[in-house]
């Protein structure tokens, strides 16, 4: 398949050198570290991240304007955080001229569509200063996470310290040290339907995108995609923010990323094709034409 990993200039395996960031970040702390660095350097005035919400593990988009706020938003929440909903607000109520934003591949698509077609995003396109993408196979409604963690894994959501999808399983870790894993066979039906037409796994349109897949535990795979991403990444590495290894020297490496990207895209292309004849002589809408 052509270009399933999108365009990129460099790809490395990396992790933050900041112990505090690494403590609660999902993988190599790439997102939190990059935003912290960009804030310090004045590359961004603030970043839209998935902050804590009203219920445990329910994210609420927030504009982080300090390292403490970035730290509070570390870690993956496997349910929807509509980060893009803050993109105009960040430039208005928060007064940011240089906005950072983290998001899933679909949210990066939303950002780029919005830069080309800013129907309601007045003065926003030029203020998007750093768009960080996170790999994403699928996402879940909040209530699915409640059901998976409380019913299937038998844990109280407020006791959960981390969730992760990896090695073919959905992992739930608790404060008291319990580890429960669910086969993805169980989780599939709880996925958000909108994910099943998604054709991007590794955030092809971000300035820099990152995920766990491809790198060893605690490390992240990082694609530096465009000139802007390269400038920020090079500066951050030069400032000692990251340890890096050539992606060719880590296991399982890009081969696995490519395989998963292909699997996702192929499966979802089938879904899209199926939608064309879903009813009797009636199609479901195809957003891509």
């Amino acid at each position: 398949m052509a270009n399933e990993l999108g365009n990129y200039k460099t790809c490395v395996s990396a992790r933050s050198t900041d112990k505090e960031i690494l403590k609660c970040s999902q993988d190599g702390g790439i997102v939190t570290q990059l935003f912290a660095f960009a804030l310090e350097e004045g590359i961004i005035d603030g970043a839209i991240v998935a902050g804590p919400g009203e219920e445990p593990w329910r994210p609420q988009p927030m504009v982080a304007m300090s390292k403490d706020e970035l730290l509070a938003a570390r870690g993956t929440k496997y349910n929807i955080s509509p980060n893009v909903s803050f993109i105009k607000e960040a430039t208005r109520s928060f007064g940011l001229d240089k906005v950072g934003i983290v998001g899933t591949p679909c949210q990066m698509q939303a950002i780029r569509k919005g830069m080309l077609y800013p129907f309601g995003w007045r003065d926003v396109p030029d203020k998007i200063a750093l768009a960080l993408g996170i790999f994403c196979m699928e996402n879940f409604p909040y209530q699915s996470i409640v059901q998976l963690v409380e019913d299937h894994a038998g844990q109280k959501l407020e006791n959960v310290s981390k969730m992760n999808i990896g090695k073919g399983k959905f992992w739930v870790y608790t404060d008291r040290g319990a580890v429960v894993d669910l086969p993805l066979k169980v989780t599939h039906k709880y996925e958000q339907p909108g994910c099943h037409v998604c054709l991007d796994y590794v955030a092809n349109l971000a300035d820099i995108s990152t995920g766990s897949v491809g790198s060893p535990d605690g490390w992240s795979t990082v694609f530096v995609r465009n000139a802007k991403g390269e400038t920020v990444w090079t500066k951050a590495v030069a400032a000692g923010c990251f340890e890096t290894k050539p992606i060719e020297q880590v296991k399982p490496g890009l081969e696995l990323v490519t395989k998963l990207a292909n699997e996702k895209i192929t499966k979802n292309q089938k879904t899209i094709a199926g939608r064309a004849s879903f009813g009797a002589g009636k199609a479901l809408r195809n957003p891509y034409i």
Partner: protein
Amino acid sequence: MGLLGLLSKLFHKSGSSAKSDTGAVKMVESKRKEEKSVADKITVGHVHMSGCTGCLVSLADNYGGLLTILDRYADLVYGLTLADVRHIPKMDVALVEGSCCINDKCSVDEIKETREKAAVVVAVGGCACYGNITRFCRGGQQNQPQHESFLPIGDLIKVDVYIPGCAPTPQMIRNVCVMAYLLLKGNAEQKALATSYLKPLMDLAAKGTEACFCNLMTEVINQGLCMGCGSCAAACPVRAITHEYGKPQGQRDLCIKCGACYAQCPRSFYSFDVVNNYEAILGAINGALQ
């Protein structure tokens, strides 16, 4: 000569006087360039139907960019208060702001005449596309209290391109102007780019004259396409959209029917050919306006 023409002249006078020490060769060169670009300009008119002039202000909020457009790419041949022309002339592109009051013969004649005279009709803003705030009119306003029936222009004439939103953003109007220029005057490659950029906006125009928060329900969420990005909420001018558990909820009483949310949604239309090239396209637009 209208206000903008004057502004544009002034702007370029000061621009050239700053370079008064440049050699004669350069001057000739730039003169030739100027002549060439003038010859290649498209003609554009701003047709004001029943709207609040917010769309026009948005166009003007491109500041220097607008002057560059008027200088290099487009002659403004019609526009209330802007160009001293009484009757709708022939033009390449008509930017129509506002809906049409069908109780007002003058407006009805004018929108029909616009269709006859313009090669491309662009509905600029929610009112022209979807009625927007004018949908809520019940008449009674002075000095024409009997004027109460306002239709999106697409209910009276064929419209080629839609720019939804209230107000449509300066950047969006600018992008469409540049693309319209490339479509009409560009080389084959530029025409192809402009066509793929404008196609979704033509599809919106072909799709109909009703818009509402409900489009997100019926055409995105009900269709199994929403992934909770939040683009819609960020686009809404009246903050009618919030996200509950990741999905858009609309306060439908607040919705003014501008169509921005649906157009902004990446799951309403999304062209990989266009969006994957966002850097090159934005680079070209910014370059054109330098």
